[in-house]
């Protein structure tokens, strides 16, 4: 039987340590852009729309997207990395950013130009698309076009999407050990189809050892690595050099 030996923490106010406190930094010196960025940080997808409509009188849609919406989401990413923000806040901020981008695209009369496509999915049998939600939000915030296949995606569908969209990178998320076995199958089929696309895999049950055991695989430790990895893939780095850089 193990009993409490150390009483030193008994009288500490634990509730003070419950959540880290951290303030969102100022994102833009421009008060109009700062207001919009703040709505992204606060995850307010309602008030952000009138604020953007107002801003469009003096700013270009691209300015608003880059210097307020995406800049705001990057700040959210920082707060998440530091453990200040939790998943629900990231989802809400991503909603607000996407609502804002849609409003700006309406004003432009076309979709904003994206750097490149990334196909994202959660493994077949896995209904926990939680990690993927963050990956999507961060890739989106960094100017990539996310081809979001959602959760519980069959192997063949991932390969078909890669053939169709020719992404610079493909990602797979799995929370369960029963479902991550789909990843080597996908890697094998991509390889057979002549598509040497870096395949970043991560999520609850997925370990570095597992992912680096098959070709194309690069282990994604944190969702926040996704934009950096996509930039590397966009710059033309091979899966081998990306694995060497991000893993091991």
């Amino acid at each position, binding site marked *: 039987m193990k009993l409490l030996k150390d009483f030193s923490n008994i009288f500490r106010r634990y509730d003070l340590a419950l959540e880290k406190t951290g303030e969102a930094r100022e994102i833009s010196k421009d008060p109009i852009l700062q207001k919009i960025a703040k709505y992204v940080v606060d995850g307010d997808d309602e008030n952000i729309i009138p604020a953007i409509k107002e801003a469009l009188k003096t700013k270009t849609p691209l300015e608003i997207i880059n210097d307020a919406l995406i800049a705001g989401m990057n700040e959210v990413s920082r707060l998440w990395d530091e453990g200040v923000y939790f998943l629900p806040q990231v989802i809400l901020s991503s909603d607000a950013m996407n609502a804002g981008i849609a409003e700006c695209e309406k004003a432009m009369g076309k979709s904003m130009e994206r750097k490149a496509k990334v196909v994202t999915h959660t493994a077949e049998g896995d209904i926990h698309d939680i990690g993927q939600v963050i990956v999507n939000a961060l890739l989106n915030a960094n100017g990539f076009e996310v081809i979001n296949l959602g959760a519980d995606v069959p192997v063949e569908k991932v390969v078909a999407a890669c053939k169709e969209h020719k992404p610079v990178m493909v990602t797979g998320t799995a929370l369960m050990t*029963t479902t991550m076995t789909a990843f080597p199958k996908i890697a094998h089929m991509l390889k057979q189809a002549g598509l040497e696309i870096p395949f970043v895999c991560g999520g*609850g049950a997925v370990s570095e050892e597992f992912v680096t055991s098959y070709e194309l695989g690069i282990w994604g430790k944190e969702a926040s690595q996704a934009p950096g990895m996509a930039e590397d893939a966009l710059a033309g780095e091979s899966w081998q050099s990306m694995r060497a850089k991000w893993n091991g």
Partner: protein
Amino acid sequence: MTPKERIMAVLNHQKPDHMPCFGANSTVTYDQMEKMQAFWPDGHEKGEVMAKQALAAYTVLGFDAVRVPFCQTFEAEALGCKIKSGKEKGIPGIDHPPPYKLDDTPEFPKDFLSRGRIPELLKAVKILKKELGDEVPVVAGIIGSFTIAGALLETTTLLRATFKKPEKMRPFLEVAEKAGSELAKALIDAGADIISCEDMTASPDLIAPSTYRDYEMEYQTRQFEKISVPKILHICGNVDPIVEYMGKTGAEILSLEPKASAKLAREKCGPDVILMGGVDTATTLFMKDEDTVKKACEEQIAQGIQILAPGCAVAPGTPLGNLLAMVEVAKRH
């Protein structure tokens, strides 16, 4: 000591002959299915097959308790969620679309206990009780309110609500708590000795610790007050930020993954709570060899674990030897 006496000793803060070892979550693997000649999907759907598979925890692995069911969908199905079969290799999951929207008022069906596969689950517990008598405890699983609410609304909808409209979660948490509590009572009537409550969605990996403290904790506590047998509370992931609150829910046993600190749990929850856990089911139990498993078990025991267990649900492809290695370690303590 019989396995039951061993576990009772730990619960009563007495010294067992050696440390007990069993799962708070599913411990079924393909190897065990082969040995028992009982397979999925029947093991999720038919009482007799479910009982046969669960029995393997005692007869094949030598664990100190058996555990049903092997998935997390019984309450959700009975409350109206669509279920997707895991077929031969996987576990059933919740399918889209969810039955409710956040503005809806969820209903608790009067015939809840006779819906979906619940009658089969109860049948499995009765069979196990008959087979194992008073020697080996039957652990029966229920699902935490927050996780059931996530199934009723779709998890991302619930996660949004935690910050935007938290009060709207309450009717769903009410119904979910009732579902788990009613199921627990029926399981106890059928012969369950211990109730294990899995609450995956309440993990700080998914919700803010303050949401657990301000909402889920209340429903968990209310539920545990209604359950007369010992209770295990299992929340996945690193629960360090909420473990103090988990300790206040009335659960006699907390089941921890190695990602969480058993030492911290002891500091924050005091001497009364029993800590259960041990090996990471993915990176160690599923992927590594027996020696690594043994080492991981020893580390967790040194951290204060009192009941050795897989940290979470065992991956069905886990090698048999790795599970047997756990029992070997438990017998040394």
